[in-house]
């Protein structure tokens, strides 16, 4: 029997285990939306802006480990996905973005709502396709999902002209992928693993530096085993939060620009740095020549291009983090505790703990601590926007499991949190999902409140409202002589009324003693989103702070 390209697309997605798509219709997608009308297997979530679709698919992927799928029409619909695709690319998130395209006879003629999507997305996708023939569609879908989820994960875009959706084919889904040129290397080289074993045996003051690769590869158990077997302290990147239990005695928290002082001192002093699924981002390393200056570096990563990209590496191991760690653990003898090194770290922890001054208005750090106290025993997913609130949420909440921290790391995308929280809640319906937001970020995709309300998503949106673009203001204060050029958001709208207008619950908190009751009230509401507008201290800063260009041990601590 012959079926249309649109039906073949839905069948193919079903084959890939897709049960939810975040999308927004448009002219060229009408054949697909018509095919969806009768289809009950794949749930389509109507967002209110395509950027919301991309971030929702991304949040879904981060919360579940599955491939997130988003859909947009040609031209402006498709270009609205760009920020979301770039966000997923920078954080190596498995995503398939499907875009409609003008019919093949109209391609290249500047037709109505035509944009060269494969051209535009080339630098921000792992791979992309323009489907020219309906017969190619099942194969391309198969390849796209395979590419998105294997190796270093990433977004793949499939651009489908309208006639490709209409034309009919004899449908058969391919059994396997045949990609001559794409063969990721999963197993670490045994010789390199032996070198790592030797380096570990010789190390006196080692530190493990774990990134998002630990979470992508589902290697948190192996990481914990390695740390405990060797008694090595573990610091994580922003993307690696949750890859190692934050409450573990060997945990150093985050390193880098807003890392803990003890993580930054430990990395600066260490003689062996074991980088696991992390990429030496400039926000982590600070002044590159003065980063871990005395350390031998072991770098484990599935992407060979990451090795030696930013720092010199002594023992490079290309492979899947989980498999490499398993191989390493099998060969590694237990290592005696280096007590003086752990004592030194303990001293730093005692001397420079994460802290803040309690006086001077409602403190954002206090709000995060209260949230942690209230929710630590529940399955809680914290999603963030980007800015100061993001750093506080990373610092003052403890994450003991992977996939409970969802944040835009590499691209630093404001407006990510709310739609990503929607996606996370769809993926983990039983979890408590909290979007920690700033007043700047929340206004970037606030229309996605409708998506949440319509789907009765009980997400909580905690806006830490300081009437500023806080992080930019912090830089202006510390580096640009307090010239608060265009960072004051003094005429913010009434966010409580906005929440209510969308059909969500809106609450406002201005004092410490109101924090806990308001949170408890929000947590009790399970049939719609709740937004709490926390009116916080205006000029609170995120400390520690490594000024740009400095080494990471040259921090402003408070």
């Amino acid at each position, binding site marked *: 029997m012959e079926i249309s390209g649109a039906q073949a697309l839905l069948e193919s997605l079903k084959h890939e285990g897709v049960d939810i798509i975040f999308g927004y219709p448009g002219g060229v997608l009408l054949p697909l939306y018509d095919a969806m009308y009768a289809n009950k297997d794949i749930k389509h979530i109507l967002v209110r802006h395509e950027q919301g679709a991309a971030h929702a698919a991304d949040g879904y992927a981060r919360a579940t480990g599955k491939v997130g799928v988003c859909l947009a029409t040609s031209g402006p619909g498709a270009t609205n996905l760009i920020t979301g695709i770039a966000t997923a690319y920078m954080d190596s998130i498995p995503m398939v973005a499907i875009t409609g395209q003008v019919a093949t006879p109209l391609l290249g003629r500047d037709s109505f709502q035509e944009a060269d999507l494969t051209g535009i997305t*080339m630098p921000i996708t*792992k*791979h992309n396709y323009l489907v020219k023939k309906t017969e190619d569609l099942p194969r391309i879908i198969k390849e796209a999902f395979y590419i998105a989820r294997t190796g270093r994960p990433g977004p793949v875009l499939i651009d489908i002209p309208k006639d490709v959706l209409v034309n009919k084919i004899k449908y058969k889904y391919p059994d396997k992928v045949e990609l001559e*040129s794409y063969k990721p290397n999963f197993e670490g080289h045994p010789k390199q693993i032996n070198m790592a074993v030797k380096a570990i045996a010789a190390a006196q003051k080692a530190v493990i530096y774990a990134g998002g690769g630990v979470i992508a590869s589902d290697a948190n158990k192996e990481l914990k085993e390695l740390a405990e077997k060797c008694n090595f302290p573990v610091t994580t990147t922003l993307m690696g939060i949750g890859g190692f239990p934050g409450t573990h005695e060997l945990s150093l928290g985050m390193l880098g620009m807003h890392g803990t002082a003890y993580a930054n001192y430990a990395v600066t002093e260490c003689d062996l740095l074991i980088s696991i699924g992390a990429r030496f981002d400039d926000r982590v390393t600070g002044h590159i020549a003065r980063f871990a200056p005395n350390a031998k570096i072991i770098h484990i990563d599935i992407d*060979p*291009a990451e090795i030696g*990209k930013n720092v010199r590496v002594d023992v490079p191991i290309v492979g899947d983090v989980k498999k490499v760690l398993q191989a390493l653990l099998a060969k590694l003898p237990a290592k005696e505790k280096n007590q003086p090194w752990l004592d030194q770290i303990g001293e730093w922890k005692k001397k420079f703990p994460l802290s803040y001054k309690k006086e001077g208005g409602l403190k954002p750090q206090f709000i995060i601590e209260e949230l942690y106290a209230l929710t630590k025993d529940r399955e809680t997913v914290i999603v963030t926007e980007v800015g100061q609130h993001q750093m506080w949420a990373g610092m003052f909440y403890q994450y003991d499991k992977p996939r409970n921290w969802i944040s835009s790391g590499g691209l630093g995308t404001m407006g990510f949190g709310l739609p990503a929280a929607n996606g996370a809640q769809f993926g983990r319906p039983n979890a408590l999902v909290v979007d920690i937001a700033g007043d700047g970020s929340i206004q970037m995709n606030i229309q996605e409140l409708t998506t949440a309300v319509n789907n009765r998503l009980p997400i909580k949106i905690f806006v830490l409202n300081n009437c500023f673009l806080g992080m930019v203001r912090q830089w202006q204060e510390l580096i640009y002589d307090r010239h608060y050029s265009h960072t004051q958001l003094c005429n913010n709208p009434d966010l409580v009324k906005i929440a209510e207008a969308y059909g969500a619950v809106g609450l406002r908190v201005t004092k410490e003693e109101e924090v806990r009751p308001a949170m408890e009230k929000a947590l009790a509401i399970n049939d719609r989103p709740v937004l709490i507008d926390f009116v916080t201290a205006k000029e609170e800063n995120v400390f520690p702070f490594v000024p740009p260009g400095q080494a990471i041990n040259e921090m402003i601590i408070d």
Partner: protein
Amino acid sequence: MRHIISVVVENKPGVLTRVAGLFARRGFNIESLAVGTTETPDISRMTIVAEGDEQDLEQIIKQLYKLIDTMKVFDLPADKAIERELVLIKVAANDKTRQEITQIVDIFRGKVVDVAETSMTIEIVGDENKVSGAEKLLTKFGIRELVRTGVIGLMRGSAE
């Protein structure tokens, strides 16, 4: 430092843009780029001449391998590679200069491929030095038009 990079890719639409775009995005200047199919029609070979130090080269090779359509990437070292370029040069010519031009072309083992009343078009094949040498000697006659294919190269023997 000048590098000749040979990239074996699947012969699909858009691959050239992907490869060239990767160089541009990462700030590498392409000096020349030549593309054609290989003995297998669905595989193409690109020869790219670019400037960069050893670290740049290592990174660009790794990044090229990240492209899904890339099959193999080689850095062709000058002493182990055969490198050739074809150039077509149209020079001004008349009865007085035609013979001298022909002599120069012979020395470079080139070929005259077109003769007109006021011009001659010459084909020269060789490495970069040879092509540049011929170009220099022909300049005094007045070069009307010139086109170079860009370098192509292969490793000597069965080194690949």
